[in-house]
């Protein structure tokens, strides 16, 4: 039985530290934004989690292709890990986006392209897991998962561009500002520091969670194998 690799434990610790620093930068170090006030600080984490989720999304689509080409089940495990992490982070992105939108634009939800696409992608992920749940054979589960993730991976970006290009009818947002204007404020130098650090921190956090999840998948499979040996 492999014990937890040292590198992973170090990465865990580093991730937590980075998260802490990022929080400090976002909540204390960065100046208060003029128009929206303190709620704007949500933005740093919002972008961080969105970025993480996006990485997971792209990786998942890549793993679809690698699995279908090689038929090696390890790509399936990687894909499940990527999608799970991405699912959680898109959810956080959406919630943070909501928290930001309410005081800033007096609405819990804006139908802007990014947020809406995040929601659609969440639904694709949920459908992905529901598809897998209905299949017993692991090889077929992997194949179907890969196909659906590939189809979803193509569809979500198209959805994003379609909304951006076509949806000119936005709900009228009190305050008059365009609901699409997430970056509707200029960033000072300190803000930029907080911003880029958040991106960096969340990249590390993504890798950490991703690695942990893969390991979890491997351990699960070991358990299945052992169970089988015991029952025979």
């Amino acid at each position: 039985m492999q014990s937890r690799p040292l590198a992973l434990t170090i990465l865990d610790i580093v991730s937590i530290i980075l998260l802490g620093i990022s929080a400090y930068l976002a909540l204390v170090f960065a100046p208060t934004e003029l128009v929206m006030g303190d709620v704007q600080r949500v933005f740093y984490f919002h972008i961080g989690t969105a970025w993480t989720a996006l990485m997971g999304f792209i990786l998942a689509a890549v793993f679809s292709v690698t699995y279908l080409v090689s038929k090696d089940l390890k790509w399936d495990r990687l894909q499940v890990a990527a999608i799970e992490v991405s699912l959680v982070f898109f959810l956080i992105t959406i919630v943070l986006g909501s928290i930001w939108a309410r005081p800033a634009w007096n609405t819990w939800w804006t139908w802007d392209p990014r947020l809406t696409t995040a929601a659609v992608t969440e639904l694709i992920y949920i459908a992905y897991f529901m598809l897998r749940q209905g299949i017993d054979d692991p090889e077929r589960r992997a194949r179907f998962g890969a196909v659906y993730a590939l189809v979803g991976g193509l569809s979500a970006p198209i959805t994003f561009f379609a909304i951006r290009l076509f949806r000119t009818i936005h709900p009228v947002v009190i305050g008059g500002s365009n609901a699409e204007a997430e970056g509707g404020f200029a960033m000072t130098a300190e803000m930029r520091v907080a911003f880029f650090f958040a991106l960096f921190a969340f990249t590390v956090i993504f890798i950490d969670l991703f690695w942990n999840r893969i390991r979890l998948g491997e351990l699960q499979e070991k358990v299945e194998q052992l169970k089988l040996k015991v029952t025979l």
Partner: protein
Amino acid sequence: MITVKKLVKRFGLKTILRGLDFEVQPGEFVALLGPNGAGKTTFLRILASLSRPSLGDVKVAGYRLPNEAAAVRARLGVVSHLPLLYGDLTAEENLRFYGRMYNISGLEPRITEVLEMVGLDNRRRDLVRTYSRGMQQRLAIGRAVLHDPDVMLFDEPYTGLDQDASSMLDEVLKTVAAKGRTVVMTSHDLARAEDLATRFDILSRGVIAASKTHRQLHRSNLLSFYKEALAD
């Protein structure tokens, strides 16, 4: 005609076929016997190119599976315990459809020839969903021989047939086998298998446990042969 070496088939963590070796010469009629769950259907599906081997070599009619599957299919006729027929089409429409899928020339006279062979010419314009189980099975065999295959695979063809229908099926099978075709048939029913087959193989625990030709076996000994082979 059929050569199988060290065939392994896994479904996830379960291994159904464990290094199975099997060889059939042209013109042989092999009855593949064995208890439920031994892997007879799995094995037949692999030979039929409907399932991929996990490991091992499979050659049918001179072509390797799964790489040259398309070439194998043209020479293969399969009858499973499901009818593989469309209930809302008539008998001749069903045959016409399959004839087109197999790109058979001189289709119309061939359809009549086959219908006469299985004794269903007088009901050719009836919808298949009005057919009894026995009639459907006979039509299914007609479908399987339509393209004059060299190899025929039958998976439990007698399932659900009454005495009359079984006798009719016997006759059809004898006609089919008489043309020098190579046949592999799985069956629970030892009595049926006895009359038709030239060879008896027992599949048990994922390998061929025993094999005897018709000549090596005296009539009453098939049952004891079967029991002995399974006792090991």
